[in-house]
């Protein structure tokens, strides 16, 4: 009971990237999503590529692009531009990111006391990626009563050199908990509630004083001299994050940085909100709680999608569809009891290893779990293709974690694939609808690879 030029299914990083790109080209965009997920579960970082032995994301990206069947084989040339494009959008909404394809892949400490390779991070996480000076101390500062961040456990683990791989870590790691005003008696203190407290300037002032005092006392006890970095749980403000973090940086003796936590991920929620805000500003619409129940086709084109609303469906006529439903975790790919995979919305064929390869002896195989690579095979325009390589649906684009051939957990390529594919799909479909609007019903072609046949806009 509505209509759009572009319907985007899924509101994660890839879906929102596609939606923004399409809306910026003037298309009427509706994002329909089952719920929140990807962004709210992730670290908020923009991982492009991270392989052990690679110095930079660009180097790792090159290695991934050379792997047969990897989405970067199609997308590699778009990655830098799309990440810079997204970074500018986020910065414009007050959420600055640091790092690029040529920044060193650093070992960034995590809130469970390990490290992970990362290069492009929110400004509040970025200080963790700078190389450690000789004699530098890391103070892990928790919040008393907050159960998602255990400074002693994190510090004990990070004190072991093996977690820092071939790179030097901090000389010493200390732990402390700060008692923040009114927070110690709460039963269900969670990251989001804390982050919202940091939005309140008066409370923030007191909290920063308490954090600063706790860090100073710890350093004094350790009789420390030298430079200091302070790791804090990623809760330093939600709506007023930039100001809160700047104030904290001013006041602490060492350089603070945020460690992303278990969900709900505050940096992820910030990322989602910034992208959603950018989309609304560009004229798009986001509807959450919409599960696609039916798809209408005309030949090899999707003409409408319908969601299962209360007692009746909500039908949206559309010129094109971006499938950004995610992989297995996001619910975009589903398997039946017999081990047959199917794509959840359009029923597209899924490229996946046979069932007997699903189970492996080592759950943490160096190459990643075989199932990670499951996904949908596309052509260069990101249209889904059959085994013969022919496009199955002309006006559908597949983006993000649904794409076959990537192992995002092991290859650290999730954000790069999502943003590059999202931007490419959104721009192409947006240009197409703009062409339609300009051509008033004439059959349009847009771009050398993008030929829409027999498509006349009603």
């Amino acid at each position, binding site marked *: 009971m509505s209509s759009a030029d572009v319907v985007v299914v899924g509101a994660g990083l890839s879906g929102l990237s596609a939606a923004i790109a399409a809306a910026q080209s003037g298309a009427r965009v509706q994002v329909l999503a*089952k719920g929140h997920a990807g962004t*709210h579960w992730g670290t908020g970082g923009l991982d492009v590529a991270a392989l052990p032995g690679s110095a930079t994301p660009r180097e790792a990206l090159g290695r991934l692009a050379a792997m047969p069947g990897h989405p970067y084989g199609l997308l590699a040339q778009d990655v830098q531009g799309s990440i810079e494009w997204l970074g500018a959008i986020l910065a414009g909404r007050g959420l600055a990111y640091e790092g690029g394809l040529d920044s060193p892949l650093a070992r960034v400490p995590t809130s469970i006391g390990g490290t992970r390779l990362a290069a492009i991070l929110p400004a509040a996480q970025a200080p963790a990626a700078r190389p450690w000076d000789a004699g530098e101390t890391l103070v892990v500062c928790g919040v008393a009563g907050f159960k998602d961040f255990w400074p002693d456990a994190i510090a004990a683990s990070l004190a072991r050199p093996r977690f820092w791989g071939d790179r030097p870590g901090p000389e010493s790691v200390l732990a402390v908990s700060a008692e923040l005003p009114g927070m110690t008696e*709460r039963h269900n203190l*969670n990251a989001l509630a804390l982050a919202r407290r940091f939005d309140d300037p008066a409370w923030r002032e007191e909290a920063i004083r308490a954090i600063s005092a706790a860090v100073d006392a710890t350093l004094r006890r350790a009789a420390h001299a030298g430079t200091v970095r302070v790791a804090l749980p990623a809760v330093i403000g939600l709506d007023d994050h930039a100001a809160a973090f700047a104030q904290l940086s001013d006041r602490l003796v060492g350089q603070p940085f945020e460690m992303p936590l278990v969900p709900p991920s505050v940096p992820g929620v910030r990322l989602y909100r910034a992208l959603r805000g950018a989309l609304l500003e560009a004229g798009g619409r986001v509807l*959450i709680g919409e*599960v696609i129940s039916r798809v209408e086709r005309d030949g090899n084109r999707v003409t409408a999608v319908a969601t299962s609303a209360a*007692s009746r469906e*909500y039908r949206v006529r559309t010129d094109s569809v971006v499938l950004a439903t995610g992989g297995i975790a996001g619910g975009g790919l589903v398997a039946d009891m017999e081990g047959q995979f199917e794509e959840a919305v359009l029923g597209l064929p899924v490229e996946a290893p046979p069932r007997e390869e699903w189970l492996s002896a080592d759950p943490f195989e160096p190459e990643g779990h075989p199932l990670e690579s499951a996904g949908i095979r596309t052509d260069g325009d990101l249209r889904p293709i059959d085994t013969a390589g022919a496009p199955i649906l002309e006006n559908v684009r597949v983006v993000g974690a649904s794409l076959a051939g990537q192992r995002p957990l092991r290859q650290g390529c999730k954000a790069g694939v999502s943003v590059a594919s999202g931007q490419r799909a959104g721009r192409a479909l947006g240009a197409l609808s703009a062409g339609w609007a300009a051509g008033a019903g004439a059959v349009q072609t847009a771009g050398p690879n993008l030929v829409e046949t027999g498509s006349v806009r009603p």
Partner: protein
Amino acid sequence: MSIAELVAEASLEHVGYSSDECLKCNVCNTVCPVARVTDLFPGPKYVGPQAARFRSGRTSPVQVKDWPILASPDVTVDYCSGCGWCTTACPAGVKIAEMNSQSRARLRAGHRPKLRDWGLGQTDLTGRMGVLFSPIGNFALSNRLVRWGMETFFGIHRKAPFPKFSRRTFQSTWKRRQKRRGLPLAPRRLAAAPAALPAALPGPDKAVVYFHGCAVNYYEPHVANAAIAVLERNGFAVIVPPQVCCGLPLISNGLYADARGKAHENLEVLADYARRGYKIVGTSTSCTHTIKAEYREMLDLHDDDSTVVANATWDICEFLLDLHEQGRLNTDFGRLDEDLPYHAPCQLRSHGIGLPAMDLFALVPGLRARDMDHDCCGIAGTYGMKKEKYDIGMAVGGPLFAKVKASGAAEAACDSETCRWQIEKASGVRTKHPVEILQAAYLAGDKARHQEAAGVGSN
């Protein structure tokens, strides 16, 4: 039945089973408007799917005679406003808000309800009394001493938004109007054979059944007038069969058994019409959602009547936009040169039908409607009227009120009545139902055409 079938059935029909799908990912906690502003509510995950494991027999219906009374372990569930954002945002399809409503009803089962909660559920009773004694009722509701008494003795906050009672109910006005026009009143039961349709009752292609809801009946007859005018302009006669409160205020106050009574009364009448092919159109987006979804999901009324009525029920903007999609909507809208802040109520979002009012506003020339993009106004039916929850409600809606005020607009729009009262009271901006705006646009169109015909137009 195979395991797969059992799983499928459980995930479709039973709110309680859906907690098995919970990943504990906390997404619901990130969108909860109540947890955003107060520590008194720990968040939907904690009181919903997380506490569900402590509720034995969780799939059994609530407050049904001969079913055991099962306690809920967590009393903080009472601070859930029932806005439904958690269910909307859940990536795993857990019916969290529904689970919380049922848990609240379990808390109440076997206890005599608070007079306040019982009273807030009795919208028909308070409405009828209020209309009967409307001068006294309206004086009382605007009298500080009376409001102080209501707060002190009943727990209804002194600043809670209450509209003025009408001088007469919409139903009695409607009866007079039908009599004046020489038209019959819609019968309670349509006779069995189609041929026996009362001759003057237009068929389902030319008429719709109007579900007016309590707000229209006792407080806002102007919404009904606008809705009827808009429907008639589009070629639909309006049928108003006997009806009672949809039952939602009872559901939100944990009085499921009473709510079932209301539901049965309505279903008995409406099912007859629905089976004849009539669409049931409502102006209260919360009533229409209750009929569409909650009779079955919350009250466990899984019979043929509840299904046929649910499938026939439409929110009025959904209905009008559907007409437009079919190319049948009269779009002779005149120019409305104004800014219009719009709030999409939580209940509308639970319909899952997009933003039909915004799509309709886009058809009105000159109208600059803007979605305020705020989660909840805080009133949540009767939640924000309660003494202990008023401040929570105001804090939830705070950013919305500020945005509406800052827009500088003369009026705002919202599909749900209690939200309209809350926004209007808190922002000071007159807040209307979208059909009132559409009717104004039609009238502006009439006026322009009239002027043109009379040669008064600018060209």
